[in-house]
């Protein structure tokens, strides 16, 4: 009985070891890469992760969805290699990273036209001015119906949907519309997961929401884009209006931060280079606006330098 147990045990151990060892031969980079952060940047990170894993089958890229704030928290605790952000890192987050000894490189990967969205059955809203948006979203706002925004609109209650307080989109929108990051009326359906916001706006005839352009693009059939008037006429977000900066003030850069210590690992460097090399090709499919080739190339040099690799 003892002898056969030993036999089985050693065969099992050999089998396990063989299975473990097999991964490296598939070609390309091996290792695990942890990405987290903004839900707006998520479609971008996910697209890159898919393409990267297709080229490097032995690698494992996991992409999380904690929100810009939550992502930075994990990043500055050393838990993630990359973190997506739909706003620049704040001073407080910088201090937290410095305290933990985490240095990083900020990669600007795309520009987003933060979109104001209504239900596709909404036939009276085509354009909203920044002042009207502020009137709806500011703290202490008394706007409850569409008629409170413009007298000729119906007196139906506006159902508000927006990102939660951890979201970079929330920080950015409140900063440019309400004047201060984080200043917002509290009585709206909040979620860090933009898909929930899409569901909410798509289900409610009198809903109003705001989130990244990519989520509008995926759900064009049930959502309607609202043009924003920043002082020089109503502008809809699109590649052209973002490129020439006429979609203001809601066009914003999207970032992916990578920690310098992670860059010393070959798979992290490979992924960072992949992002910058393939950005021009991958980004447009996600619905965001890609940067120019030269902008990506400049950042490529910065990444190589931070990794200590000869450019």
């Amino acid at each position, binding site marked *: 009985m003892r002898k056969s147990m030993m036999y089985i045990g050693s065969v099992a151990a050999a089998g396990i070891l063989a299975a473990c060892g097999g991964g490296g031969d598939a070609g390309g980079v091996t290792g695990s890469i942890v990405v987290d952060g903004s839900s707006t940047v998520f479609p971008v990170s996910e697209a890159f992760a898919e393409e990267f894993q297709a080229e490097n089958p032995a690698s494992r890229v996991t992409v999380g969805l904690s*929100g810009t704030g939550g992502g*930075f928290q994990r990043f500055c605790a050393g838990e993630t290699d990359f973190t997506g952000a739909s706003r620049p890192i704040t001073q407080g987050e910088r201090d937290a990273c410095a305290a933990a000894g985490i240095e990083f490189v900020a990669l600007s990967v795309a520009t987003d036209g933060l979109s104001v969205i209504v239900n596709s059955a909404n036939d009276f809203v085509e354009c909203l001015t920044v002042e009207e948006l502020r009137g709806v979203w500011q703290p202490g706002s008394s706007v409850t119906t569409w008629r409170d925004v413009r007298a000729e609109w119906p007196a139906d209650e506006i159902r508000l949907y927006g990102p939660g307080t951890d979201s970079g989109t929330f920080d950015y929108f409140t900063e440019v519309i309400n004047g201060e990051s*984080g200043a917002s009326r509290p009585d709206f359906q909040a979620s*860090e997961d933009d898909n929930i916001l899409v569901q*909410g706006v798509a289900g409610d005839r009198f809903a109003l929401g705001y989130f990244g352009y990519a989520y509008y693009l995926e759900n064009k059939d049930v959502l309607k884009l609202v043009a924003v008037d920043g002082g020089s006429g109503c502008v809809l977000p699109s590649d052209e209006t973002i490129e020439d900066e006429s979609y203001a003030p809601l066009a914003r850069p999207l970032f992916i931060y990578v920690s310098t210590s992670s860059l010393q690992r070959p798979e992290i460097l490979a992924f960072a280079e992949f992002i910058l090399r393939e950005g021009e090709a991958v980004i447009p499919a996600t619905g965001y606006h890609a940067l120019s080739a030269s902008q990506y190339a400049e950042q490529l040099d910065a990444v190589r330098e931070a990794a200590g690799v000869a450019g």
Partner: protein
Amino acid sequence: MKQATETQGDGTVALNFRRSRNVKERLIGVLLFLCAATSTLVTVGVVAVLLGETIGFFSQVSIVEFLTGTRWEPMFQEKHFGVLPLLAGSFMVAAGAAVIALPVGLLTAIFLSEYAAPSLRKTLKPMLEILAGIPTVVYGYFALTFVTPLIRTVFPETDVFNALSASIVVGIMIIPTVSSLSEDALRAVPNVLREGAYGLGATKLEVSTRIVVPAALSGIVASFILAISRAIGETMAVTIAAGNLPNMTLNPLESIQTMTAYIVQASLGDTPRGTIVYQTLFAVAMTLFLITLVMNIVSQWILSRFREEYE
């Protein structure tokens, strides 16, 4: 150590295990006691942690505001800590679930114990248990994607995330709890009572409703309370289907936020330790714990006080 056997003077062999048996028995007793103590210690530990952070919370927020305030806005700039909207949300979902589960569960129990043939009972009872085995997150998506559209055909003004669909699925979810505990209580009523009633010319309905149910009442009420406390503590279904909008309302067609959904929202996000938002997690959890604790104590008391022992 003494030998296990001892040859006696007359040639017989006596087993000499009294000493080692005592030691073994003691050891097993201690081990079993430790296992039982573990669960008690864990409960005490949980309560201690909750209490610690809750006391910290109430050193910053007045308990009066917490218990009587009608605005729950802990994450925005201008903070309000009135827990009543969350309580109203949890209460609405639990009440709605009770309206569905208690009658259906009790009637199912009466059917299974008094009316059903043994073969039918054998097939029906396991099927009911399957209902209890479905993961709650599946119930949540079922509510969002199937029940809500159904409600909206009857009440078109219902929000996408509403309390009614959550209460319906939570009600379905706790039917097995009510029915199996009630059925045990009903079956525990001795047949003597039934036979006596039949002997006096009572119909089956009269026996079931006038004799058996009142005799088993303490067990039935205990099962009700247990099911309701389960409904109050239900997390996934309400998080998905009921919404994230603290709303002081009794209208089940509106979006609400229950205590459990708030805990999910806050803990998934960016809540650094020691901040007031972090402490709200514990304050709300403590409230939830106290409510379910009180309900459990009440159900135990009812069971012990009103239980009728016939044998």
